[in-house]
């Protein structure tokens, strides 16, 4: 009899791990708390760096894991260990005994309303990166009405001790440049301003987006962190920053302000973490045994990690980890 493998979280990490485990001859069980698979990627429109439609990735993964057991809309109530087996109780009454558990529980998007000075939830025209992806996907958004000027605020809730998160969210600079280009394509007459502290365009082809944004789309890059946002009498937004390169305070009016909410840890796993006695890292994410050699391993034998549950990651990084985790689990079960 094959040992049970439970994957908690059905985002791209969980789905890709399931795909590989199936290819290795296993029959993994995915437990996903929301009503559909795909995680955050299902909310995005086109993915950098190739502008691949996110829906294509999800559709492909969904098709290839049709052999997996999938519980959607299901939560894990408890996870306890007895010898070398984990017992997982689900909220649909099912109990599973599993030899290996993969946590692929991903991240949370920083709640932008916590940065009160940016006015999300106060001013209508302040939106988030997630809201903008929804607009690109074709959802109606009455807040965005043919803007003449659009601002992007990098690092919202990231690199910010006051927001309780000192880490860089890594994907937001690239996402901002990508969205700035998409916005300019959608509203060619709009002036676009990106407010950044450092531009961290670290990945393959990312710098090309930056050059295109400058050269072909005329996006204005302003090196200064936005300090506050207010509303003008005629309902536009007044954005204040220091233009640190010019060394002068700067203000500009925009019709839409996009906050680049960062990737932060997913607090909903805290019960599981406590019950299974897993370690949490200083940044709140799940703690790998070692950040070079054992990223996919937890401090407990039989519990593995993949994707953004251990830190901010791009989709290709997440997929690569998921594949590796499937192999780790396969070897673990073979040896055990």
């Amino acid at each position, binding site marked *: 009899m094959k040992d049970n493998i439970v994957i908690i979280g059905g985002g791209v990490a969980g789905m890709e791990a399931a795909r590989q485990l199936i290819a290795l001859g296993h029959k993994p069980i995915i437990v996903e708390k929301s009503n559909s698979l795909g995680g955050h990627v299902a909310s995005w429109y086109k993915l950098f760096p190739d502008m691949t439609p996110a829906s294509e990735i999800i559709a492909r993964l969904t098709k290839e894991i049709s052999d997996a057991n999938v519980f959607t809309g299901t939560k894990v109530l408890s996870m306890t260990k007895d010898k070398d087996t984990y017992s997982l109780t689900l909220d649909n009454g099912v109990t599973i005994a599993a030899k290996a558990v993969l946590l692929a529980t991903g991240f949370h998007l920083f709640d932008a309303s916590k940065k009160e000075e940016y006015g999300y939830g106060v001013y209508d025209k302040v939106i988030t990166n997630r809201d903008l992806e929804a607009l690109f996907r074709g959802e109606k958004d009455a807040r965005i009405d043919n803007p003449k000027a659009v601002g992007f605020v990098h690092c919202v809730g990231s690199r910010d001790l006051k927001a309780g998160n000192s880490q860089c969210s890594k994907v937001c600079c690239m996402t901002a440049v990508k969205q700035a280009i998409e916005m300019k394509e959608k509203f060619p007459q709009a002036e676009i301003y990106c407010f950044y502290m450092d531009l961290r365009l670290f990945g393959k082809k990312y710098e090309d987006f930056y050059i295109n944004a400058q050269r072909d789309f005329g996006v204005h890059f302003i090196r*200064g962190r*936005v*300090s506050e946002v207010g509303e003008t009498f005629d309902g536009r937004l007044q954005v204040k920053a220091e233009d*640190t390169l010019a*060394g002068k305070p700067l203000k500009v009016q925009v019709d839409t302000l996009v906050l680049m909410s960062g990737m932060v840890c997913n607090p909903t796993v805290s019960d599981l973490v406590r019950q299974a006695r897993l370690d949490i890292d200083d940044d709140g994410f799940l703690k790998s045994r070692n950040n070079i050699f054992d990223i996919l391993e937890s401090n407990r034998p039989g519990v593995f990690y993949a994707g953004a549950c251990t830190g901010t990651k791009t989709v290709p990084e997440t997929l690569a980890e998921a594949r590796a985790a499937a192999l780790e689990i396969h070897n673990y079960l073979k040896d055990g």
Partner: protein
Amino acid sequence: MADFGFKLSKSSTLDLDKVDLKVYNLLCKTDPDIKTCMACGSCSATCTAAPFSGMSMRKVILALQRGQDVRPMLGKCMLCGKCTMVCPRAINTRHLILSICKCYD
């Protein structure tokens, strides 16, 4: 001697081998947070005095790190403390300003 219209100008180069970091080093003891400034400019952007006087806490910190005299600029600060509220590195900029004043006592 004939005047050819040339004169020697003082070099504007910051010579890090020769800068006097006495004040900055003192501040690193009293207000060690000063070392974590990332020059984002939030403090200057929110500063009430900045648009009219050229006051910039970011520039003050940089000047200190480069061994320059910050007294002329600091004189423009009204100690309102708005900068302290916005700093993402949680630097107590208002306290820092008071500490700088003590260094020059």
